[in-house]
């Protein structure tokens, strides 16, 4: 009875509220905002009025890397609802005050039950990580549909809350690529919603459609009617016919007075004169000026993208619980690499040979640190390019008989057959420095940390055991 009484009591200790054995943390405007510490709490209560700040806090929480943070239930302490897309879509509701915590109990119970069912496998691919986060958020909130919301602040004009929150508006084109991949994997079904046109240079949807001079792209032009005088075939703008004495129109060529349109003159065309370059033209060009990067796009060269409504499939729901691990197929096809299955088979042969002849064999790895963040900055295509560059560095320094394979999209495994361990170790150090220099030169936008090392294969060990001895420490980083 006493326990039940304590459970029902709302105990307030500074910003921490305890109720029904759950710890609520009240985020206030004066707080030093530290999402990392939210792992200690079960629910966040946002006591912030200002919309932009509220939006910022929610975005920071929902885009946090730690699942305990980005899945945490968020409620807003307020009596009125907000119109803002991010706030509404990514928070779990509003309550008037902490005295009304009982109102959110059922919802909270459901969310927490769903969160508890979720497994979080270590995923190193940025793309997989994003898919997992989206599915996790949707599943825990009981959402089946991922609707595109027209959103002014979105780079592509539409916002998929659970996914777009992870991107700044310059990179939002990646959202569409990730959703396409998820659809291809059968995690979503889609329905066409709208088509958007994006800047060819930066993929921004902030476009200013303008009618411009075909020559200089200026939209400052003056229109002029051309008048054709039938008897003498004179053609010129109306000013040519105006005189300073009266309001009559007199032909400058034959001095006759123009009296009746259609009978002795007509206006067959309109000419525009550009006030910037004085070019004369009859038809404006329509150009789309990107307000983000300033590129003048020909409308026919804009990037056209379908905006779809996504519905989570049964497979998607299962993946939401069990996790989505995608050893990117694209990477497997990079030249000079073999698939992981083949890598395992070849490694098996090596171990067998080691057993038979007793020579030295090593296995090495190259790991890209914080691959998810790097992927976020570079985008999928660039990330693939990066991995390709690294494979080429490896291939040019290894023996032709050595084999290289992707363990996942951020870790490459390779054999180092028949080389003395110490010698191989020094080669690895050189390769790491070479690769680091290459990355600094080629990828200025982001710092890419590399880890490389080599492990000597032990007599009698199994293939999986050998691989695990390498990758396990990496997945814990």
């Amino acid at each position, binding site marked *: 009875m006493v326990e039940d009484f304590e459970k029902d009591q709302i105990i307030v200790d500074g910003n921490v509220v305890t109720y029904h054995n759950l710890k609520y943390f009240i985020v206030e405007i004066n707080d030093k905002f530290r999402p990392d510490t939210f792992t200690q709490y079960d629910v966040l209560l946002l006591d912030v009025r200002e919309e932009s700040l509220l939006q910022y806090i929610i975005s920071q929480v929902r885009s946090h890397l730690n699942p305990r943070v980005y899945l945490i239930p968020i409620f807003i302490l307020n009596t009125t609802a907000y119109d803002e897309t991010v706030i509404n879509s990514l928070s779990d509701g509003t309550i008037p005050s902490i005295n009304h915590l009982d109102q959110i109990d059922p919802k909270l119970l459901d969310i927490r039950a769903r969160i508890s069912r979720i497994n979080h496998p270590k995923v190193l691919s940025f793309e997989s990580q994003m898919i997992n986060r989206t599915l996790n958020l949707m599943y825990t909130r009981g959402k089946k549909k991922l609707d595109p919301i027209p959103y002014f602040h979105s780079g592509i004009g539409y916002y998929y809350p659970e996914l777009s929150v992870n991107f700044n508006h310059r990179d939002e084109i990646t959202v569409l690529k990730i959703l396409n991949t998820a659809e291809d994997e059968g995690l979503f079904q889609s329905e066409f919603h709208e088509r958007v046109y994006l800047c060819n240079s930066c993929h921004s949807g902030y476009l200013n459609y303008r009618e411009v001079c*075909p020559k200089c792209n200026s939209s400052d032009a003056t229109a002029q009617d*051309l008048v*054709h005088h*039938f*008897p*003498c*075939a*004179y*053609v*010129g*703008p109306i000013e040519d016919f105006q005189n300073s004495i009266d309001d009559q129109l007199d032909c*400058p*060529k*034959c001095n*006759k007075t123009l009296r009746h349109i*259609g*009978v*002795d003159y*007509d206006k*067959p*065309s309109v*000419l525009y004169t550009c006030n910037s370059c004085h070019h*004369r*033209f*009859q*038809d404006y*060009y329509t150009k789309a000026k990107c307000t983000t990067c300033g590129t003048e796009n020909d409308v026919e060269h804009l990037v056209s993208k379908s905006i779809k409504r996504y519905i989570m499939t049964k497979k998607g729901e299962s993946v939401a619980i069990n996790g989505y691990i995608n050893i990117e197929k694209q990477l497997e096809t990079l030249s000079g690499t073999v698939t992981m299955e083949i890598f395992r088979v070849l490694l098996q042969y090596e171990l067998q040979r080691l057993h038979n002849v007793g020579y030295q064999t090593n296995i090495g790895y190259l790991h890209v640190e914080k691959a998810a963040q790097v992927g976020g900055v570079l985008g999928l295509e660039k990330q693939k390019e990066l991995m390709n560059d690294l494979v080429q560095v490896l291939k040019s320094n290894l023996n032709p008989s050595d084999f290289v394979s992707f363990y996942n999209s951020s870790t490459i495994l390779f054999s180092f057959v028949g080389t003395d361990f110490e010698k191989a170790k020094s080669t690895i150090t050189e390769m790491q420095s070479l690769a680091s220099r290459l990355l600094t030169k080629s990828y200025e936008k982001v710092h890419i940390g590399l880890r490389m090392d080599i492990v000597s294969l032990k007599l009698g060990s199994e293939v999986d055991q050998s691989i695990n001895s390498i990758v396990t420490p990496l997945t814990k980083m």
Partner: protein
Amino acid sequence: MYLQTVGFSKMLRVFWFFFFFEFFRYVVVDLVSLIFIKWDRYRNRYDYLDAKRRLWLELPLVSIIVPGKNEGKHIFKLTTSLQEQTYTNFELIIVDDGSDDDTEIICKSLKKNGYIDYFVRNEVRGGKASGANTALRIAKGKYVVHLDADCSYDFDAIENIIIPFYEDRKIGAVGGNVMVRNYRESVVTALQGFEYTDAISIGRMVSSYLGIYRVVSGAFGAFRMDLLQRVQGWDIGPGLDGDITVKFRKLGYKIRFEDRAVCQTSVPNTFQKLTKQRLRWDKSLVRFRLRKHSDVFFPHQNFSLSNFISFLENITYTLILNIKWYIYAADMIFNFASLLPFIIVMNIFLYTGANLFKLLVFNLFRERTNAPFSYFLIYVPLMVFYHGYFLRIVRSIAYVKEFFFKESYKDPWNPEKTSIKALEIGI
């Protein structure tokens, strides 16, 4: 045999028309002139090179204007031949005079792809002159080259048509050399091919040399921009190319034919179409030479002897001799009725001989041809009928129609609204 039998005086009496007019003007005068042209060209070869050098030194902007209706299908070919030009400092202005086919779509696409500099569409058709004047309004070049859309041009045509302006400051306009592209298509086109090679091209070389060149072809003609602005562009046609040439001559400027500036065009391929074209051309002689510009014949402040001679020669050889030919025919019928079959055969023989002589000998004076002269050899006998009968009859009909009925004002070549007004004020 006949000459020995009847004597030379009798021969002249019967064939006076041929000997005194046709042979003298179109063989003797032409041949002598061509010899002088050849000599002058050799003598002035360094002046020509100097003119060419000055053109390239100045590199003036040339405005190429192409007015037309429903010409879209020809425009791409035209732009292709213009892109090959040695002289590239030009702007290409296409005016669509109320086309009702795909011309607008084609031209807008070509403009977007940079083949055309300016494209103006007149929603309502205003006629060729208004189209050309619209282009003139936009043109910024020092020289204006008027082209027909269905023509194509030698790669040095634009350069060659501009050079004469640098040879002589008094040259106001230069006519290009129009050749027949489809001369192999039919007998009609072959006859016109022969006519263009011989009568038109050689005829214009000679008349240009004699200072009486009258028509800068609308298919290929270059004009000084300042003079075009002074005469305020083209007047309503048909025959607007001849009309503007007269206006330039009246300003006191010389008109030059440049046989080295070559353009090729497709001519009518049936007698019906050819008749229609020639009726239109021939009516303009009466309308413009005898009516609109009749002041050339009378003494006045700006009287010019060369203009007078130019007109007189034109009127004499096209109109008066046309009438006189009928007098000649009557003379023969009434006075030499018994000899008629012989006279006809002899005439054919004389004219064929003259045509053959011209084809062979004048070929020595042509710097550029698009067809081997041998191709036309088999057509030599037919030329007598083509020139002597077909063209003469068409010309006669045109004169009658224009003299008595002012038919040119009813020609659908111009929109009715403009023809009515032109008729009202008598131009």
